[in-house]
Structure formats: C-alpha cells, structure tokens
C-alpha cells in the first residue's frame, strides 16, 4: 500500500497529494483529505507567527509507526502525511493527512486516528509570536489535555499505560 510520509519547510499541495492516491485506481471509493492550518489567534490574542521546532530523525520514524498502525487497523488503499516545520504565518498550512479506502468509514476513521496521534506523539513543538507591550513575546504552546483524551479513545482503557 502506498504510504507517503514527508517533513518539509515548503508548503504542500493537498489536492495534488490526494490525487496521487486515487490516480488510475478503480478500487478507491473514498479519499479523506485533512489540512491543519495556522490560525491567526491563540487564546484570544493575535498571532504574528508560529515556529515549529522538530526532532528530525525521530519525527519521520514516529509518523511512519502511526501510519503502519493505521494500515494494520483499517483496510486502507493509500496514506499520505506531510508535516511542515519552520516559521509559518497565520493562514499557512501546517499538516496534511490523506487517507484512501474502498469505503468512507475507514478513510474517515484512519484520518482522525492519525491526526489524534500527530497531536500527541509526533515530536514537534510550536512557539508562537504575539504582540506584547511594544515588543513581541515568544511563547511555547502548551500541550492540551483534550488532545491526550482524543488520542486515548483509540486504545481500550485496559491497554493504556498507567499515568505517570
């Protein structure tokens, strides 16, 4: 099964990546394309820019592990995950997840699964720039408990590691 995992600074073309997963195939009945976007505000304050730091060697391996997990769990016909890093402006794309399957339930579920894990286990860290008093403040975005809860949905509670 075709699986693309890429980390890059440059913008990606979501439509083009989705098209690659269905091109020339008659078995793909569903393609789900999710794009995560840099918003222009964080907790009510205008955001000037967002910088994504990452652990390069681990990020690709970790995303690939989750792609493999998605393949084992759902009958997918194609997956693409592209995650950008570096300094981004509001309105720019951050992450792309595309899943292709015969039927929509599998494509939707796998895309959501991958996003929930990207939010909690992919080694990226966001730092945002917001306007302070006559200066720019750089703030590390805090991980959300709600993201951990979303990721936990995919693991039965009996198999979840004990909280630290």
């Amino acid at each position, binding site marked *: 099964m075709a699986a693309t995992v890429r980390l890059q600074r440059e913008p990606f073309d979501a439509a083009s990546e989705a098209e690659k997963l269905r091109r020339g195939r008659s078995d793909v009945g569903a393609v789900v394309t999710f794009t*995560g976007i840099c918003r222009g505000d964080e907790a009510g304050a205008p955001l000037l820019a967002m910088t*994504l*730091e*990452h*652990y390069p*060697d*681990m*990020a690709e*391996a*970790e995303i690939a592990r989750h792609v493999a997990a998605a393949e084992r769990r759902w009958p997918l016909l194609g997956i693409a995950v592209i*995650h950008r890093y570096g300094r981004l402006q509001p309105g720019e794309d*951050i*992450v792309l997840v595309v899943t292709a399957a015969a039927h929509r339930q599998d494509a939707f579920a796998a895309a959501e699964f991958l*996003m929930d894990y*990207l*939010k*909690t*286990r*992919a*080694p*990226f*860290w*966001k*730092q945002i720039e917001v306007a302070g008093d006559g200066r720019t403040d750089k703030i*590390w*975005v*805090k*991980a959300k408990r709600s993201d951990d809860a979303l990721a936990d949905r995919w693991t039965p509670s009996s198999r979840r*590691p004990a909280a*630290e």
Partner: protein
Amino acid sequence: MKLRYFAWVRERIGKPEEEVDPPAGVATIADLVTWLSQRGEEYARAFENPRVIRAAIDRAHVRSDAAISGAREIAFFPPMTGG
C-alpha cells in the same frame, strides 16, 4: 551517550545537545534526570517539574522507568504540540 534537548528544555539548559558519561548508578531515565539536575542551575530549572518532561531513547518514546544502558541517543523535551 548523546543527549538532545528540544523546545524550552533546550532553552533552559542553553544547548541543543551534548555528550555525557553518567556513573554506573544512573540506570533509568528518572535517574538520569536527577543526575542532570545536579549539574547546574540551568539543568535544575529545565527539570524542575520532572512529570512534565518526556524522553525518547534512540528515537522512540520511553517512560521514566526505562533503562538507559546501551542507549546511543537520549532526548528530553516537553509534551509535544505537533499536528
């Protein structure tokens, strides 16, 4: 072994990576955090709340009780905010 630091852990310690040679008694990630905290103010500050620190050994997530023997690269970082 090589240690790598990311995000505000890196900022507080003041460097992105270093080579260390911990003594034999330092067996787990938790032990390593304790040992590092004693190396200086900047380390103590970075690890002041160990429960918030995440670790990876050879590019895979591990828990704080993971054994460090044989590790080539250990990374410390805050909870992730990718995606």
